[in-house]
């Protein structure tokens, strides 16, 4: 009987749409977790996941746990005739911090970006250095 844990991880790998490229495949990690498998894009066979693949899966899992927010907005209506919308994370403002070489911490708020793809960019407030 298959280990349920293996099945879960296999499903997770499949759900993540993990595509493997033979030309870029790193060597299998010596200490690869044998419980995590991936389907090789070239051979179609299951094999132990590489360390990089395991890391990618872990990141996906963490992201999924951290952000369960559905992407589409959701329309709603009120008896008064009002129309509302539940927004999503793309409408949120984001603050970031950077440590400069002299040890200072600079904090900047980056506004909501709507559906723009460049949502993680930072304002061009940094002065030129030369």
């Amino acid at each position, binding site marked *: 009987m298959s280990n349920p844990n293996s099945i879960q991880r296999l499903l997770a790998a499949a759900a993540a749409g993990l595509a493997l490229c033979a030309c870029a495949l790193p060597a299998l990690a010596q200490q690869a977790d044998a419980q995590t498998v991936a389907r090789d894009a070239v051979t179609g066979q299951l094999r132990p996941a590489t360390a990089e693949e395991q890391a990618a899966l872990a990141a996906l899992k963490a992201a999924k746990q951290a952000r369960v927010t559905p992407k589409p907005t959701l329309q709603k209506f009120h008896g008064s005739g*009002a129309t*509302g*919308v*539940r927004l999503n994370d793309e409408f949120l*403002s*984001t603050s970031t911090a950077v440590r400069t070489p002299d040890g200072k*911490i600079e904090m900047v*708020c980056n506004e909501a970006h709507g559906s723009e793809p460049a949502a993680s960019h930072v304002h061009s407030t940094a002065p030129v250095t*030369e």
Partner: protein
Amino acid sequence: MRHLTISRSLIAAACTLACLASQAATINITSRDPAGVGFNDPTPVTPVGGNPGTTLGQQRLNVYRYVADIWERNLQSNVTINVSAGWEALTCSTTSATLGSAGAWNIWRDFPNAKPGTWYPQALANKLAGTNLSAGQPDDGTGYGNVDIKTQFNVNLGNPGCLDGSPFYLGLDGNAGGKVNFVETLLHELGHGLGFAVLTVQTSTGNRLNAAGSGYVATGGVPSIWEQYMYDNTAKLTWLNMTAAQRRASAINPLQLAWIGPNVKAGAGFLRAVPLIKTSSPAAGGTRNIDYSQSAFGPALPASGTLGPLATITTQAGETGPGCEAFNADNTAAVRGKVVVISRGVCGFAVKVKNAQNAGAVGVLLANNVAGPIVPGGTDPTVTIPSAGITQADGDALKAAVAAALPYGGRGKPGLVTVSLGTDPTRIAGADASGNPLLYTPNPLVSGSSVSHWDVTATPNLLMEPNINADLTTTLVPPLDLTLPLLKDLGW
């Protein structure tokens, strides 16, 4: 009589609004964190800066409550404001981190007492409508689909690999030191969630959110409550009356997009005059008033007083660029005890200033080598003299003034141009010519929307500038801040 009826209706409506607005706001904070994480982190900590919590989770919650209390004291609403809060593993590196994010989680249009056909953030919409518009709405499966504001902050900040050694400062006294002041960060982000954001306009395109809230459209979209007060001094239009293309252009029209709401205008009198470098010379044309940008390194220029006589340097044998190498004997003699003009180019601004400092200069004016202003960046903690960026044209004029003043000396002493600091009483930093505070419209628009902050030139620093500065307070009203006046312009 019809006239009397209308008058009575208006009075009744006004009374209704006044009554609705008479109650101090209540803000509820609901955690999304699982056991042992975030607000529930049991790690023992020592009380800090007035925060009496003895676990990390409790201290985090105490800051949330402290900041919510500040907002409660400043806002009126008879509808509870609901904030969903969580601590999550956000993007990090050793030297940078996403601190967190926040914003309005629901928006509404065409509710009672609303401006027709206009998007409002839910907390404000509820206040104006006098009811929770999301009450009774089925949840979207997340458990927080109907809240007014959603927030999340970085649970790993300060740990190895996540802005190492610089966690959130959870004290309430502002003494953050080398840590990240969580009070100011949260105060700022909740401000966005309460309505300090254009929110439903995609500024990279100028497009508005459509009537269903499902996407941005170039035409036929629904305006944000912000747009009526966003006035572009070039286009002579508010965003409300612009096309998408005009809004897109306005968002990257530096120092030209003003907020013209009456509460902000009335409260903006505390913004200070534009600082100037003033030169005086015995020669014609050498007496000038010059705009400048403070360098990001070294001490700030004083607000007033004399800085010293002005000097220039000559090209040194074998130099790679102006001021890029240690000054030779002639240049050292020329700049000792003086303020030296050095042109931009080849090496870093901090390198030029350090070389001037080593030669005995008391200040440096860094002249651009192309048109336009510059903000000299760079870092060097050993720089101890002030410096500032000026335009190429001003730099050329100052160099000419130094030469023109030479014949005006006497008894073997050459004539000098003297540099002092002052202000232009006719111009307000961070405001347009009419005194309306400016919104932040940098060009190029690197990050998409930028207009939902005050311009960075405002002095003193304001809570809702994009940079969360170290000198901010928790006061939201004049003469320290303009956050609350803007929210009042919206209807708060």
